[in-house]
């Protein structure tokens, strides 16, 4: 009798668990990765922006709007830079963020070393003043210089695929620029380290020279050659 009761209890508890699991499934939208509903706004974690907003008096508007929690790498640290952390994520393979971050840090170190070498080789003060020593500034300049203005997309008209030049969104331009920089840094001798090659590519791109800038210009030339098809696009 006791064993029977036990079995019944077990079945009941299992049923409760099952129904609880079902209730959980109903609350979580299974199509999306995020658990947050769409009306949740993303957090403003930068202190400069926060202080600017308080001055403008916009914080009161956001006071009662549900807000997402900040991501693990979104800090108000002085060294934090959203573009750099994006680059780290693009470098990352198989979720190995520690390696990706160390590669980026090594790249910045290499940039600094190369630029300081150049600085000390300079004879005159004017030449010295022209050299940028901050690797972060060089990085941002390089990414900006490699952003394409438009890109080619295949559009089928009358059974023939045409490569049609279309305007590019800022987000995609940034992605392409970073991707090209990374792929250029990967094309190297086996004796050269990735971080060193990436440093060279970034310095080149910041000076508006090098392979990546040439790649961007080649894309622009192709777009120019296909400008007759520009009216084929649908947007």
């Amino acid at each position, binding site marked *: 009798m006791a064993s029977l009761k036990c079995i019944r209890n077990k079945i009941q508890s299992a049923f409760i668990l099952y129904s609880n699991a079902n209730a959980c499934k109903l609350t979580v939208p299974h199509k999306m990765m995020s658990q947050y509903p769409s009306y949740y706004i993303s957090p403003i974690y930068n202190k400069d922006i926060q202080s600017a907003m308080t001055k403008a008096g916009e914080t009161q508007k956001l006071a009662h709007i549900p807000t997402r929690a900040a991501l693990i790498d979104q800090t108000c640290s002085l060294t934090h830079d959203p573009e750099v952390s994006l680059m780290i994520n693009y470098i990352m393979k198989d979720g190995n963020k520690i390696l990706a971050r160390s590669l980026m840090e090594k790249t910045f170190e290499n940039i600094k070393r190369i630029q300081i070498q150049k600085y000390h080789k300079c004879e005159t003060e004017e030449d010295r003043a022209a050299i940028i020593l901050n690797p972060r500034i060089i990085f941002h300049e390089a990414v900006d210089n490699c952003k394409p203005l438009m890109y080619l997309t295949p559009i089928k008209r009358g059974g023939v695929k045409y490569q049609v030049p279309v*305007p590019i969104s800022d987000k995609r331009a940034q992605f392409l620029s970073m991707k090209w920089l990374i792929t250029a840094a990967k094309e190297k001798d086996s004796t050269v380290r990735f971080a060193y090659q990436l440093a060279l590519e970034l310095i080149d791109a910041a000076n508006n020279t090098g392979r990546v800038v040439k790649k961007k210009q080649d894309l622009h030339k192709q777009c120019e050659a296909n400008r007759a098809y520009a009216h084929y696009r649908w947007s």
Partner: protein
Amino acid sequence: MRLATLLLAARSPQKEPVPFKERLPLKLKSRVSGRGMNTTEVFCIHEMSVLFACLKTNEFSQKLCSNEIENFQKCYSSSLTMREGRKEKEAKGILIPGEKKLSHKQVNTLLRQFPQFV
């Protein structure tokens, strides 16, 4: 005998004038269907061609064409925002004053305001 049945079965040639039969009511409905709605508008073609001309003359250096680039990007972003706003309004069927090309929902709201009386 056979000839007689054939003659009976055969239809006589139509007499002029042919009488008209109204199969469907001869008036337009006060609504339209939304089929065949494909808007193919291309934005910023002019800005793009100006930019191409500038790039070609300056050997694809962007510094010398900064004005054209800015115009092109401004045109693209404004067209995106405009299209989004218009899409929202068209989906709801809200009439935009001065709009020449109407969506089927907008036409329906207009027809509802001014229906056909026969």
